[in-house]
């Protein structure tokens, strides 16, 4: 049975960032930003779901992130993912792409046998497009980046159309393979109302911990048992569950360091003001012509 694992990420809505959300060490305090499902990852999930619709199998979505990242895992369930995992631990915080890929690859190994790993080409907060390839390298499997369409799947090979600079190419890869997907590939399906009803109460471990913290009448063990029984527990992987070397995770496992962060300060412009009327605009045209800027 084909098994696809989809890497998804919750990202800060980068349109709404101010200096107030930066921490002293130069990293962003994501807790203070509005968070959204990285669109290309949603497209990757859609592609995995369509692969399942056509060829059968199972789709697992995983994300590494803090407690509230479970939001997008619930969204994955609403779209049709068969199972989801939250990978969450304080020790994973501050990870660059290399440390992230390391933890993701260890989590994938833990989840079990797989044939495909799907991911969005890049996430809007860093635009690096590095986590996909680096996860492939850590897993020791081939990669196809910038995928647009899956053309064929046979017993041992998958054929994929991908974008290249100035054109397209068709690649055939052995399985397992990691595939990163560009945003135009497919349109993600809407949530299924039935699945929203079924899973809106799903909670990951940090969600339950938060509930317990705020209510002295609740006990963690009982709560966990209850959610598991109701099939609403999102399995959560921490350093205890993974075979990771802690020094390779998070900030300590990240070779790239933020040395300096400067807020962008705009000098007040010394531009010439042009009135948006016939005289002003004609004057502008004349000036540009005299300077031989336009013909």
């Amino acid at each position, binding site marked *: 049975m084909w098994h696809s694992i989809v890497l998804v990420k919750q990202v800060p809505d*980068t349109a*709404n*960032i101010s*200096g107030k959300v930066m921490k002293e060490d130069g990293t*962003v305090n994501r807790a203070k930003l509005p968070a959204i499902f990285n669109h290309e990852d949603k497209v990757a999930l859609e592609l995995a779901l369509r692969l399942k619709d056509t060829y059968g199998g199972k789709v697992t979505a995983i994300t590494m992130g803090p407690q509230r990242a479970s939001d997008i895992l619930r969204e994955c369930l609403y779209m049709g993912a068969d199972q989801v995992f939250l990978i969450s631990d304080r020790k994973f915080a501050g990870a660059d*792409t*290399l440390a992230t*890929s390391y933890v993701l690859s260890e989590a994938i190994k833990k989840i079990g046998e797989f044939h495909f790993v799907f991911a969005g080409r890049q996430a809007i907060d*860093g*635009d*690096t*497009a*590095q986590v996909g*390839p*680096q996860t*492939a*390298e*850590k897993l020791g499997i*081939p*990669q*196809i*980046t*910038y995928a647009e369409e899956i053309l064929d799947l046979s017993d041992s090979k998958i*054929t994929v159309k991908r974008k290249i*600079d*100035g*054109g*397209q*190419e*068709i690649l*055939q*890869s052995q399985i397992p*393979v990691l595939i990163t997907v560009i945003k135009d590939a497919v349109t993600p399906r809407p949530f299924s109302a039935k699945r929203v009803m079924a899973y809106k109460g799903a909670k990951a471990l940090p969600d339950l911990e938060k509930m317990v913290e705020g209510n002295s009448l609740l006990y963690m063990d009982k709560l966990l048992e209850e959610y598991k029984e109701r099939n609403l527990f999102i399995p959560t992987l921490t350093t205890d569950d993974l075979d990771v070397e802690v020094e390779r995770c998070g900030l300590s496992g990240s*070779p*790239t*360091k*933020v*040395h*300096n*962060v*400067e*807020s*962008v300060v*705009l000098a*007040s*412009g010394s*531009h*010439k*003001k*042009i009135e*948006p009327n*016939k005289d*002003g*605009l*004609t004057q*502008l045209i004349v000036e*540009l012509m005299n*300077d031989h*800027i*336009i013909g």
Partner: protein
Amino acid sequence: MEITNKEVWVFIEQRSGVPADVSLELLSKGRKLADTLQGELKALILGHNVQSIAEKAFTYGVDEAIVIDALALEHYRTAPYSRLVSNLILERNPRILLFGATVIGRDLAPYVASKTKSGLTADCTDLKIEDVVYLKKSYPQLLLQIRPAFGGNIIATIITPDTVTQMATVREGVMEMHKADSPKPFKVESIPYEADPIDEIVQIIEQHREENKVNLKSAPIIVAGGYGLSTKDNFKLVKELAHLLGGEFAGSRAAVDAGFVTPERQVGQTGVTVRPKLYIAIGISGAIQHRAGMQESQKIIAINSDPDAPIFSIAHYGIVGDASDVLPKLIEAYKNKLK
């Protein structure tokens, strides 16, 4: 960690015997970095029949070309390229390795960085060598990898103090291409290609390229529209003005996301960097990512309904007004002058 190697390497991307512009731009920058380090600049060339590419690299100041020439390397594929480049990095430990942030560079660089446990910074807009003190430790001559981050509200300087090879990718057009005043004597180290079964794990079934019809980089006049245009219909005015002025039309990332223009016409950090004679920014607020791609234009005209839009801070001429109102008037005024 004792660092003795001061070599700067540039991965030369090529197709059908022609090196990518971005690779030559990186050689020009790499020459400066190597001079600061007092080290050598090396061009790393993988492909088939690449002699002429090696020769061309020397006109951009290379000290030596490292060449792996084989039929199996004619077209880029992740497996053989990443295997060969990674092995060379682990064996030779260059101090710096630069890649173009093209589809190939963005496929290859992260895989190699992971394999060699190197740090990698994507889409740098500037690269510098400086002595750095980080967490009270001194690091001489580190590569500062500078890029806008998080929506463009900050400029981050990234360092990789504890890795042997410092890696970065740079978009096409960001660094200026210039030939060396006095090229070094031609010197090539040819490394034989040894096949590995892993190289054949992914096969190219078909490849199809179209000549890139859009050439923003060499357009003398660019008229660019942003999200502020609100509708595709308004964007038609941008195209009309560009056509009238004999220039090209372009868009900000927001315009691309909104479907007003195709990605190859995107100006900015994650698009193309341009330096035209005239750049007209319409309905573009001017986030740093966009400015990074056009601020060196000779003359900049900004048209925006928000008088506080950051674009005005770098404009030479500013027009506060709605594009749907200003553009027809501007087009009219120009037509009248032509009569």
